[in-house]
């Protein structure tokens, strides 16, 4: 991510534009409106506005609001770790990690391995996380080495490396010698099933842990605890020497190099953390969902995660933990409230379409804003 110019003024202006939450927004209006827009940012404002509008609409239609709220909270916690995985990737300079499916595959491998070993309950869950996280770290290091060779094209190469990994694993799910009859097809006795139920293994374990209700709203304390635990751990890492060096490498490679930071190494570390978080993320997701989805299921899962962190105010060049959490909360609330509200208004499930339009619209907005990512400006 070299700046391509030695002119200090250019560098300054690039930095400034990176800090402002929305450059184009400044030109749109003036006064109060633009000040709000500048501090909150266009993505957060529009998606947040939609969520509020949907809640109001749902309330007017007589939908149980506490259900909507419970759904929003649990969906947020389900997906937050995967969005969190985007933060180290952006900070280390590879941009949003479109190769997230590689991490997801590591997590899926961890889960099916734990099940194959016959582990249940928290034993199974933690073994799955250890295998998944470890495998994710290893794959992440390899992926990081690969991305170092394709600087400036990480997003595109990452996307297709992820796609290729998913289709390669489709073959492996079929031919790997798994024996546990709960995992493989009943007929033929070969190959893993499309979806594997976690009901008897470790489904909903975190969700049920210390769960309580306030005024009809369910709070899955354990699940939220896991999310905030990981967030706090990453926050601590950000404060270490390596964490600071990594952030610097992502912000300004030339400057970081001058300060004696090994940028290549930092990019590898960031990619490895991102991939490992992806692996843990899919395990958290699957235990909450109650099923492991194999084969082509992880193919497009990187895009909602990328969209979440961008909605939270991140750009392809800078992201923080709070971007990931706020973005996931907004995006998942939007999806959770769309389903019942659209059902009562339009009379059909429109949520998949909303997901497509909002998540890809967000990524597109970030790509066309003139700075960040891609071409190594």
């Amino acid at each position, binding site marked *: 991510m070299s700046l391509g110019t030695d002119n200090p003024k250019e560098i300054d202006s690039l930095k400034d534009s990176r800090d402002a939450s929305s450059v184009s927004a400044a030109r749109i209006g003036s006064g109060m409106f633009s000040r709000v827009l500048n501090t909150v940012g266009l993505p957060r404002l529009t998606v947040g506005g939609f969520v509020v509008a949907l809640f109001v609409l749902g309330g007017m239609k007589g939908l149980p609001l506490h259900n909507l709220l419970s759904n929003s909270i649990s969906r947020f916690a389900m997906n937050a770790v995967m969005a969190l995985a985007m933060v180290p990737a952006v900070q280390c300079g590879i941009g949003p990690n479109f190769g997230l499916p590689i991490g997801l595959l590591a997590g899926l491998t961890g889960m099916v391995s734990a099940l194959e070993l016959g582990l249940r309950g928290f034993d199974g869950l933690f073994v799955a996380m250890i295998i998944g996280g470890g495998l994710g770290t290893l794959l992440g290091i390899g992926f990081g080495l690969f991305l170092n060779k394709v600087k400036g094209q990480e997003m595109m190469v990452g996307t297709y490396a992820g796609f290729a990994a998913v289709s390669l694993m489709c073959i492996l799910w079929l031919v790997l010698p798994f024996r546990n009859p709960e995992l493989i097809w009943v007929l033929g006795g070969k190959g893993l099933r499309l979806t594997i139920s976690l009901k008897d293994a470790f489904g909903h374990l975190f969700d049920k842990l210390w769960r309580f209700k306030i005024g009809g709203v369910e709070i899955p304390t354990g699940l939220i605890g896991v999310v905030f635990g990981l967030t706090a751990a990453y926050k601590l890492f950000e404060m270490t020497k390596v964490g600071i060096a990594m952030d610097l490498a992502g912000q300004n490679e030339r400057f970081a190099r001058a300060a004696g930071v090994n940028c290549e190494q930092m990019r590898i570390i960031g990619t490895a953390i991102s991939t490992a978080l992806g692996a843990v993320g899919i395990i958290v997701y699957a235990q909450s969902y109650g099923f492991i989805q194999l084969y082509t299921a992880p193919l497009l899962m990187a895009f909602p995660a990328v969209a979440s962190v961008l909605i939270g105010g991140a750009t392809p060049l800078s992201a923080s933990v709070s971007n990931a959490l706020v973005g996931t909360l907004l995006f998942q609330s939007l999806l959770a409230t769309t389903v019942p509200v659209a059902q009562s208004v*339009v*009379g059909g499930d429109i949520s998949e*379409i909303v997901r497509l339009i909002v998540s890809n619209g967000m990524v597109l907005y970030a*790509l066309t804003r003139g700075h960040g990512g891609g071409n190594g400006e």
Partner: protein
Amino acid sequence: MNRDYRKRIFKKNQPNEASPSDSRFLRPGGRGFTILGLREILVRNIVPIMFVVLCLLGVRWSGKPALFLLQEVVFRMSRNSFLVLSLVIPVMAGLGLNFGLVIGAMAGQAGLIFVAARQIPGMPGFLTACLVALPLALGLGYMIGKIMNKAKGREMIAGMILGFFMNGIYQLVFLFGIGTVIPFSNKNMVLPRGIGLRNTVELKSIKWVLDDLAMAKIGKVRVPLATLALSAALAWLITGLYRTKLGQDIRAIGQDMKVSQVAGIQVDQTRVVAMMIATVLGAIGQIAFLQNIGTLNVYDSHGQIATFAIAAVLVGGATVSRATVGQALLGTFLFHLLFIVSPYAGQNLLGSAQVGEYFRVFIAYAIIAVSLALHSMQRARSMASRR
């Protein structure tokens, strides 16, 4: 405008510059090439050569008679080569591999839905579909071009994400717009609830219209001459385009945007025009493709079009910055031959046709990932050597 231009001059990493090593890597088309050593020929054409070997192995392992394979390949060539050829112009214009091809395909499908609803039979139906798709594709192509201009240097990822985005809009229109905003008379095509189209639309009225227009029988192989002629016409038009002012402009901006700008070429405008042409071609290509298939899956037919077309052109030896008609045709042949044989080969080798099907999808994704990576590495190397 002025500021944009200044910024571009400052950028050293101009993604659309043809890197000097390109000419060393690939033989300049037509004239001016020297006699090459065997090793060099191998290095330069490594991708097609690898695929020839892979295809030969696949053909052997599939255990299918040559005649069957030939017939299949002829049909697949006839219906796919138009779409693959449509990728050549964006590459020429420096816009990279056109992942936005799906959007053109969506416009084509809108035309087909119109024709299927009105039950317009035969050749008039085919032409009506093209006519309905044309303004849609022009408008969408204009929009894609404008967005590409805002995402210079990131055209491919922008095109891909735009494809996903438009897929959402497309589903919104045909799943919720039909019957509410858009009046639709043909009740057989609409879902029971009265809103939205069913997934499957039978294209009975125009099935095989183009193929049967001039079906020749060469030996025992049936050859749809008219469909092939359509692709041949496009190939001829693309080669002819080089000699026009527009073609020269497109080629110039593909090689160096800032030099073209200085030379007085309207860079942004030419890029938009190139995108509009590509989108219209995508729409026509999808109509020609689906008249052979005979059924339109409203919500899936366009899904993988861009991936497979791009994989095909890359298999033929094209790169992000260079693609020719010959590469497109060779790539279509090799890629689709592999597509046909891999399920049979999977069945014979591993006892599962499914493995072969996953394998061919893997090949499509992997070839794109590897090509993009190779291109990026090559550009970095040429940039380093220039410094």
